[in-house]
């Protein structure tokens, strides 16, 4: 059975906005993995933007990948919906402020996570930080919410642990990792193999919304030496 990466809207948006959406096709061949999305991601990355002139071209590019089976849409099943509801319930009862639960995730986030669980996916590609951090580091997410809302925020560690347990074998990646992998494997014909090109690639991903800081990009690039693998 082929391994699976479940892809969130945010990672597809970054890839299409940086004009490197075709990386999915190259990675699929190189890894022999399937890239799968729930129906909600197809709606957000193709159907809805097709109606918005500003984003129509990007939507057409993404649609092309679905039409050619590079990206696949998983059918909504009763089991998937049930898992999705349970994940959403758990996620939205992890944090509370003044006795009230903070609803940090939405149905579409839960569908991505549920699909990864149901398909036994190896990876989830997600560029926005909340869905990623609530699994990887809920304490740090609590600190962000508390620090920015200036309100006392409680983390229910038991709920967070139960949520995390669902994804203990799943690796969360961003488009930054996908692009860096593709770059270091020399999958880009259109740009030279240089530190400057890699820097431009990562900054473009960041400016298109990938959850990565300039500091992290700088730290990564500091280890780069021309003609060597990163």
């Amino acid at each position: 059975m082929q391994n699976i990466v479940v892809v969130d809207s945010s990672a597809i948006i970054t890839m299409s906005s940086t004009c490197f959406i075709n990386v999915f096709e190259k990675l699929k061949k190189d890894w022999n993995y399937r890239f799968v999305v729930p129906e909600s991601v197809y709606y957000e990355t193709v159907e809805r933007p097709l109606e918005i002139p500003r984003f129509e071209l990007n939507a057409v590019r993404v649609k092309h990948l679905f039409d050619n089976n590079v990206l696949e849409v998983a059918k909504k099943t009763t089991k998937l919906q049930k898992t999705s509801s349970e994940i959403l319930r758990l996620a939205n009862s992890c944090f509370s402020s003044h006795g009230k639960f903070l609803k940090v995730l939405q149905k579409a986030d839960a569908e991505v996570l549920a699909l990864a669980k149901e398909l036994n996916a190896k990876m989830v590609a997600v560029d926005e930080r909340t869905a990623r951090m609530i699994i990887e580091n809920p304490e740090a997410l609590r600190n962000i919410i508390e620090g920015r809302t200036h309100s006392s925020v409680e983390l229910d560690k038991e709920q967070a642990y139960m949520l995390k347990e669902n994804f203990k074998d799943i690796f969360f990646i961003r488009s930054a990792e996908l692009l860096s992998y593709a770059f270091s494997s020399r999958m880009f014909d259109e740009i030279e193999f240089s530190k400057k090109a890699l820097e431009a690639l990562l900054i473009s991903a960041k400016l298109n919304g990938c959850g990565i800081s300039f500091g992290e990009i700088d730290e990564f690039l500091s280890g780069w030496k021309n003609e060597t693998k990163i």
Partner: protein
Amino acid sequence: MPELVDYVVELRRYFAGNDAKPLRELSNRLIKEAVLQDNKTIAKIAVLAYCLHKILSKEHFLKASYWPRARADFLFAIDELIHILRTDGKREVQQTINKLIRMLDNVDKNFGRYVQNLWDKGKAKLASSAYALGMSLQKATELTGADLRSVQLYIGSTLIHEEEPTTESLREKLEKLRKMVKD
């Protein structure tokens, strides 16, 4: 904790006094409240405060011949909203807010200078604030009614991700990724 009507009264005061900056600050407070309460109506008032602040900050809006009439119409509709909120007319609240949104759209269509309209821009801006406060991108767009792609691109232009901790660095994740796909 202030009621929604108290916020709208505050909004009216700043708008009537042509005070753009306090409207912007009110918009920030309202989106925080909308996040904590998961309340779309508060989010709409936050976007409204943001858009009115934008209008008051642009000379080409204020110097337009149409503006005194539009301003009076806005004040009238805001007064109507305050009255409805005080008399607890829940259905009419949404209708009156929608009326204010249509009025904003009209002003923008006549005098705006951008392809993306002011209300949509306001929704994307406030959704990015909700994201900064900790909501997911999807949740932030649901709360404000903004378009997902617009919000993500807006977030990309901010420093939101700069101050956030990383569990594993790009280098560590890339190494792990290489091992995984080689297995």
